[in-house]
Structure formats: C-alpha cells, structure tokens
C-alpha cells in the first residue's frame, strides 16, 4: 500500500497544482522584488517587473541565478528576510572552492522537513519505523533534513551522523533500524562491512534506504539492494533550494517526484538558456516559490536530466525527474569528450567489481590521460598473470565503448582507495590548464 505524508498535495490534480503554482509564483516574485536588491537589479536589467509575471507561463521572462551569483552575493546578498527572522544556516562542503551559505526562517525549515517526510513515507516509512540517519549532521543539509523529516513521520530517529561504521552497524542491529538514510557510497560501504562480518541480507533488519547527495547508477542501486536486502530510494536536493527532498523516489523507482508545490522545474538548453519542450534532456532549473529567507529564482542546478509527466503507478501527480546523468560540475572533459564518473561506475559494476574507484586525470605531453584505479578483490585474484591481464583488458574495452575514449586501468591493493563516510572523492584532476 502506497503511503503519503500529504496526499491532498502529492496526488493533487494537475489543474489544482498549476493554480497553486501560479498564485505562489506571483506572490514570490513580488516578495523577491521588494526584498532582494540583487535580484531586483537583474530583473531591471532584463526589463522585467512583477507585473509581467501573471502565471507560470511567464516564468521564462525572469533572469537566471547561477552559482557565480551566489558567490558574488555572498553572504547576505540574496536574502529575502532580515537576519532577525532567520533561525538557521546550512552550507555546502565547498570542495570546489565555492561555498554556498543558505539561510532559513522557521517556516522554511518546516516546509523543508515536510518534503523529507514525504520522501520517507514514499519509501514505506511510518511511525512504527526506526530510522537511522547516517548523513553528516552539521553544516551539510543531509543529516538535519532527514532528521526533521523522520520526526515528522514519527519514526524513532537514530541520529548517528556519518562515520564510525562499527557503531552504525551496532545500532542497526541492536535497535533494529528499518530505514537507513545516507549517501549511496556510504550505504555501499556499510553493506560491504556487514558482508565481511558474515551477515546475510536476511539477518539485517533494514527494509529501505534513502540515499542521495551523490550521483549513483542503477547498477549501484541493485548492488546495495542485494547486499543489504532492502529497497534503495533516491532523493535529490541542493543546499541552495533547502537540501534533500526537492524530489524523491516512490515505490515505482523510476524517477524522482519533484515537490511542485514548492519548486517549479524547467529544463533548458545549457548553452543558449532556451526553455526546452517537455521530455527533452537539458539542464535542470528550479524556482523556489515558498522559500522566505533564501528565495532562489530560476536557479541553474547544472544537473543534466529529463522530466517526465507520465502517469505514475504510485498515485502521485508531481512531475518526475530522471536520475541526473551527473552534475555538470562532476563532468570531466577528457580529450574533448564528456565523461561522467557514474559511467565508469556502471562499467565496473557490470564487470563484477566493487563501486570503489578513483579516477585520475592528468595531462602528459599535451594529451589528457585517464587512469582508473580499481581495487583488487579476492574473487578476481588468481595466480595467473595472463588471466588478470585479460580481465584488465576487458575492463578497458568496456570503458572505451561506454566513454568513447580509452582509459588505463590500474589494479591497486585492497583498502587503498579511501572509503567514504561522507561524499566520496572519486576524481583527482591533476591537469594544470
């Protein structure tokens, strides 16, 4: 039986949702015009005033916001409420050197937690469940978001945060955790560790997992599902838009329902900025229509994906976004070819290797080199050098046909690639350009 946190919204007829979005958008544009000088200036430069925005059909008239706007306006330039009314900040890891600081009023947090609660119930969660939140707590949105959602559903919440894998497993077993929330790479690691401990899927009390904050492949989902004996659900979000819960998967596991009462999604051509027709693949753009403190308008996510309005068997009417092929930030351009780490992961899993790898990109004699480090496993090891070399070549061939360029595959000793307790460091780009 499908469960909903807010069925009247999640299953609302399309016309009702459009009416709600129209009303909220008009109100939000006025709020931003009145309170966010930075964005008002952008609107004025484009010759747009709040009077031009009468419905979501006028959305395309508004200017975009990008990550560089966030940097220029850092820290307070995009706030829609005085600091006095804000109660929280969250921030990105800043690994790319562009730290995002987002502000929240109590109302913002409330709506964000509603979104996370919808995701937990879509994964089958109820107030009978024990929900272990192994996302990092702190500045990272993962822990606080799912923690709040878990409270709203009424789950018994175990706020383990990330790290200390032995303790994670102890709590899962001793307190019979039924839902696990963390990054997919950490879920894979927890699974791997449990397997090493000799635990079989039927000895693990977990039934569902909500995994996000990283791009992950369908093959990795199968892998995690098999190891932990669970159903693994994807969840999507960005700190700029609140955090996890912008969209989430339902039992159909065929794309993530966008919480359209809070976020309007568009797909644009990343080069021209033109809005693309429904079903086309392009860059995902979001407009937050209920956020008070940090109201993002037409924010370019750099995520490349496709939207689908196909009727979903779960009963939800909100549009679905397909798994992003990867954030364009993660995309590597190697010898002129676009390479997503998730493509390499797919090949590894197809050939029976663990999804623990590191991609090293360098430039030697003006030519880009791609070196994929893969850990040797007991299953793969044989005394026969030729046999290992043959498998190595199979992997190189598999990657070449997936990527269109030929990589080098280096087999490394086990446990030498750092395991991730937060986000995995998959790519080391040594090129000096």
């Amino acid at each position: 039986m499908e469960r909903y946190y807010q069925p009247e919204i999640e299953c609302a007829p399309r016309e009702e949702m459009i009416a709600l979005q129209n009303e909220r958008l008009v109100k939000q544009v006025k709020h931003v015009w009145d309170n966010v000088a930075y964005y008002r200036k952008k609107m004025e430069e484009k010759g747009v005033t709040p009077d031009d925005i009468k419905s979501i059909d006028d959305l395309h008239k508004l200017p975009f916001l990008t990550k560089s706007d966030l940097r220029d306006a850092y820290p307070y330039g995009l706030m829609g409420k005085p600091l006095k009314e804000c109660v929280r900040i969250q921030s990105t890891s800043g690994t790319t050197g562009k730290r995002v600081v987002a502000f929240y009023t109590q109302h913002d947090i409330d709506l964000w937690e509603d979104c996370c609660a919808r995701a937990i119930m879509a994964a089958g969660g109820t107030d009978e469940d024990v929900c272990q939140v192994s996302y990092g707590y702190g500045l990272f949105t993962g822990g606080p978001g799912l923690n709040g959602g878990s409270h709203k559903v009424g789950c018994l919440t175990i706020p383990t945060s990330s790290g200390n894998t032995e303790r994670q497993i102890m709590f899962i077993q001793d307190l019979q955790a039924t839902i696990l929330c963390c990054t997919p790479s950490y879920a894979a690691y927890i699974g791997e560790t449990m397997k090493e401990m000799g635990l079989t899927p039927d000895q693990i009390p977990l039934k569902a997992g909500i995994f996000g904050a990283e791009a992950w492949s369908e093959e990795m989902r199968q892998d995690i599902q098999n190891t932990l004996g669970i159903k693994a659900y994807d969840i999507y979000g960005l700190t700029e838009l609140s955090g996890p819960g912008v969209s989430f998967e339902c039992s159909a596991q065929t794309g993530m329902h966008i919480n359209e009462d809070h976020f309007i999604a568009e797909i644009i051509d990343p080069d021209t900025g033109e809005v693309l027709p429904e079903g086309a693949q392009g860059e995902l753009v979001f407009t937050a229509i209920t956020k008070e403190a940090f109201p993002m308008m037409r924010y370019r996510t750099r995520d490349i994906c496709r939207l689908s309005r196909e009727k979903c068997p779960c009963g939800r009417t909100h549009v679905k976004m397909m798994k992003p092929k990867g954030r364009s930030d993660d995309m590597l351009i190697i010898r002129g070819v676009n390479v997503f780490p998730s493509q390499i992961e797919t090949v590894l899993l197809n050939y029976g290797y663990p999804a623990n790898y590191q991609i090293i990109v360098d430039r030697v004699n003006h030519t880009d080199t791609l070196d994929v480090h893969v850990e040797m496993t007991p299953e793969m090891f044989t005394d026969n050098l030729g046999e290992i070399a043959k498998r190595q070549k199979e992997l190189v061939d598999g990657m070449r046909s997936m990527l269109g360029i030929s990589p080098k595959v280096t087999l490394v000793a086990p446990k030498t690639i750092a395991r991730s307790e937060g986000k995995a460091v998959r790519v080391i780009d040594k090129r000096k350009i």
Partner: protein
Amino acid sequence: MSVKQISVFLENKPGALMGMTDLLAASKIDMRALSLAEASDFGIARVIVDDVYAASDALKEAGFIYNITPVLGVCIPDEPGGLHQVLQVLNDAGANVEYMYAFLGGPSAEHAYMIFRVQDRKAAAAALRAKGIKVVDQEHISQL
C-alpha cells in the same frame, strides 16, 4: 601430494614487496623460495614457506589479497643433466610448464629443488615418479 605455494598480489610500487617480507618476518615465517612475476602496474609474489597456515593467517589479517596454489615440487638429481632429465619426462608426459623456479634446500643447502606450475599436476607427478624422480610435498618442504 603437492607443495602449497602462496601467491600474493602486490602493487608495483616502492616498498610493496617489503611490506610482505616485513609481515612474514614479524610472524616468524621462514621462506624457502620466492619468485616474482610482474605486469606493468602490479605483480604476484609466489612464495614457498615452512608454515602455510600461519603465513596465510598473517596475510589475511593484514589485508593482503592472496591465494594458495598447489604446485609440483621436485628434488633434482644431483648429477649433470638432472634438470634436463626432469624436463624430458614432463615433455614426454605432455605436461605444459606455465612457470618454474628453483631453490636450494637441506641442512647445508646440498639439494636442488624445482617448483613447477603445470596444468595436470597429478599426471606429471606420476610420470616423474615412474622414472624414479623424487616428487616432494609441502610436509617435506616444511621440514627442510
């Protein structure tokens, strides 16, 4: 009846082999023979030790990837053409040698031993024995 060779995966980088020898030394394992096979980015160390159980235990504990490969151990006749004679028998028996290496053993290292990796180890051993050549097992090696 076989010699239990331990094959260990090693990365091709400085100190990799030393990591293994350090571990075996600390575990008081006596190595009888060592042979290295290498590819461009990794290698396999093939070792014959006195205590296979203790060695594999130590390697497992330390997180090495390894396996135990049964190989053919032969005591080479101490006379001119000794090795040639062994190879002749293997050739006549149609045994294809994948790799081989030698070591000296015995109280004052007076015996020469050869380790062979062949496809049909049992048939090869029988052919050698039929010609009066001494085939040894792990127990023999352990007691050297």
